[in-house]
């Protein structure tokens, strides 16, 4: 979610430097040679690992045999895509992805806003700082650790089931239960990222003009009315922008979290598009087919981001990029 400004030289600057005296390519390269050397490793990185990988998408159009390499594998055109469209497992992955993304949108998206409102309402800075430090921490833990912690707490022999046993209640069956899988992954996401996601809301909340609260309070508005008529309208642009960005990357439900837990619940409940690509490619060795599914998801993703930005611009908000 970076808004990147376009830096064009201002008009005066362009007028000061007449076109005719603009140095030629060679002279500019000579002039900037130190900078060019400094940026070279970074440029090479993007060319190899991003644009090389972009080129690697031709895999989607071949029947890739690792032993033969890319050049000698047979060109099959759109066969991989045809196979994909007729594959129930692929559509199962699509359905799971959309369902989980929808759950994330409904349950994960408002959670940081609520937490930010709570934190913002605290007047004591010591308490506020402490709570912030605590809730930001899980963001820095890897998914392996988060999954391990959830197993430790909610697993069959975990802490919570120990308590349930002591209280004479039946064990809860959450980990490895296909029916509980989708709520579980959303809960994990909230545990890990909710605190971190408050940062941007807190920044927006601190921008709301105090005089508006004062005026509302003088007019007799209680905390609920101030929240509804001052706070929320004040941060509406940020909420709208984040919502649009989230819709733009709707299919990005995450990979590692699902990769780690898919085996425990089986593909029917646990397969999302990214894990489908992984297991098709690495477990079944169908690299061409997996690349096709990955490319399909990537293209839908670009279309979604593009549409989301169009909508953002139409609503008068700034998107990921400028028009």
């Amino acid at each position, binding site marked *: 979610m970076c808004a990147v400004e376009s830096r064009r030289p201002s008009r005066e600057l362009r007028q000061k430097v007449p076109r005719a005296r603009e140095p030629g390519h060679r002279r500019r390269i000579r002039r900037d040679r130190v900078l060019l050397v400094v940026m070279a490793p970074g440029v090479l990185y993007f060319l190899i690992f991003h644009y090389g990988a972009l080129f690697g998408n031709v895999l989607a159009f071949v029947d890739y045999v690792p032993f033969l390499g890319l050049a000698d594998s047979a060109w099959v055109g759109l066969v991989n895509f045809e196979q994909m469209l007729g594959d129930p497992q692929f559509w199962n992955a699509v359905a799971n992805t959309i369902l989980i993304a929808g759950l994330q949108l409904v349950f994960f998206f408002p959670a940081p806003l609520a937490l930010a409102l709570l934190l913002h309402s605290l007047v004591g800075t010591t308490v506020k700082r402490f709570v912030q430090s605590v809730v930001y921490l899980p963001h820095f833990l890897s998914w392996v650790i988060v999954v391990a912690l959830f197993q430790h707490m909610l697993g069959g022999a975990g802490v919570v089931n120990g308590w349930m046993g002591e209280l004479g209640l039946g064990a809860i069956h959450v980990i490895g239960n296909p029916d509980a899988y989708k709520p579980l992954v959303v809960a994990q996401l909230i545990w890990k990222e909710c605190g971190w996601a408050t940062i941007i809301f807190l920044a927006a909340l601190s921008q709301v003009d105090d005089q508006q609260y004062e005026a509302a309070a003088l007019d007799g508005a209680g905390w609920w009315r101030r929240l509804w008529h001052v706070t929320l309208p004040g941060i509406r642009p940020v909420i709208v922008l984040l919502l649009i960005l989230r819709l733009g990357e709707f299919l990005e439900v995450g990979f590692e979290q699902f990769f780690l837990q898919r085996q425990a619940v089986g593909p029917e409940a646990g397969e999302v598009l990214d894990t489908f690509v992984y297991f098709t490619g690495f477990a079944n060795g169908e690299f061409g087919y997996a690349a096709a599914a990955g490319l399909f998801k*990537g293209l839908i993703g670009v279309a979604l981001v593009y549409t989301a930005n169009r909508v953002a611009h139409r609503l008068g908000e700034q998107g990921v990029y400028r028009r």
Partner: protein
Amino acid sequence: MRATYPAWQGKPGPGLRLAKAVALVVIVLLVLFPLWTVVATSLASPQDVIANGGWVVWPERFTLGAYAEILDGGVVTRALLVSGGVTVIGTALSLVCTVGLAYALSRPHVYGGRPMLLLILFTFLFPPGMIPLFLVVRTTGLFDSYAALVLPFLINVFNLIVLRGFFQSIPAELLEAARIDGAGELTTLWRIVLPLSKAVLAVVSLFYAVAYWNRFFEAIIYFNDQTKWPIGTVLRQYVTGGADLSGDSTVTSAPQSTQMAVVVLAVAPIVCIYPLLQRYFVKGVLTGAVKA
């Protein structure tokens, strides 16, 4: 500390304040309690752990036996060294390359600057897929090399944009003055720009270091040699995957303690550097996120 409410707001009623206090305590416990029981279980004696069914909230007899076992030169020790090395070298390399590219792109009129910036921003829109990236790693001969954990993730576009934005915000007069005093681009970068950017560099280093330390998936697809696995991959195998660590050495502590000790060691470095850098990162995130 007595809280002071703004005059117009007045003091909220006791019910509301109680509800807020309860909510905060619950939230803090939800985050900290799981971490606490993991530490407690890793430190508890085998009798305690077994008697309580595999976990402990308050260990009665402490022992460092679990740590002694996994730090005894086995799989986990090796993995910690691998992760530490990858994190240190990776962060340093990432920082150098990101700073170089960000600085060059922050200078107006640098040769090829604008097309390069557009090329980079496009990768935001269309990140490399798993399979094509795998093909690139294979082609560049990084298989079974620690470089496969570093080079494909050398520059993070978000960090790059944050740094570039910060460099652009440095007053041009400062750089101009340095140039008049005869400083070349590198001297200006080293003596003027970087000292002014300490806070944002700290944030970017933290983000890179955490990402390197936490990386586990790539080792699964890029390494055939399991002895090269970093700690995250080992953690997945032995803790979440449920494989037995006791094949490694003669284990005498409860398996749960050993597992939780691995978790603790994987979390510890992050928790240790976290307070040091915390005061910087909110600022760093916001520079990148709400830059208009």
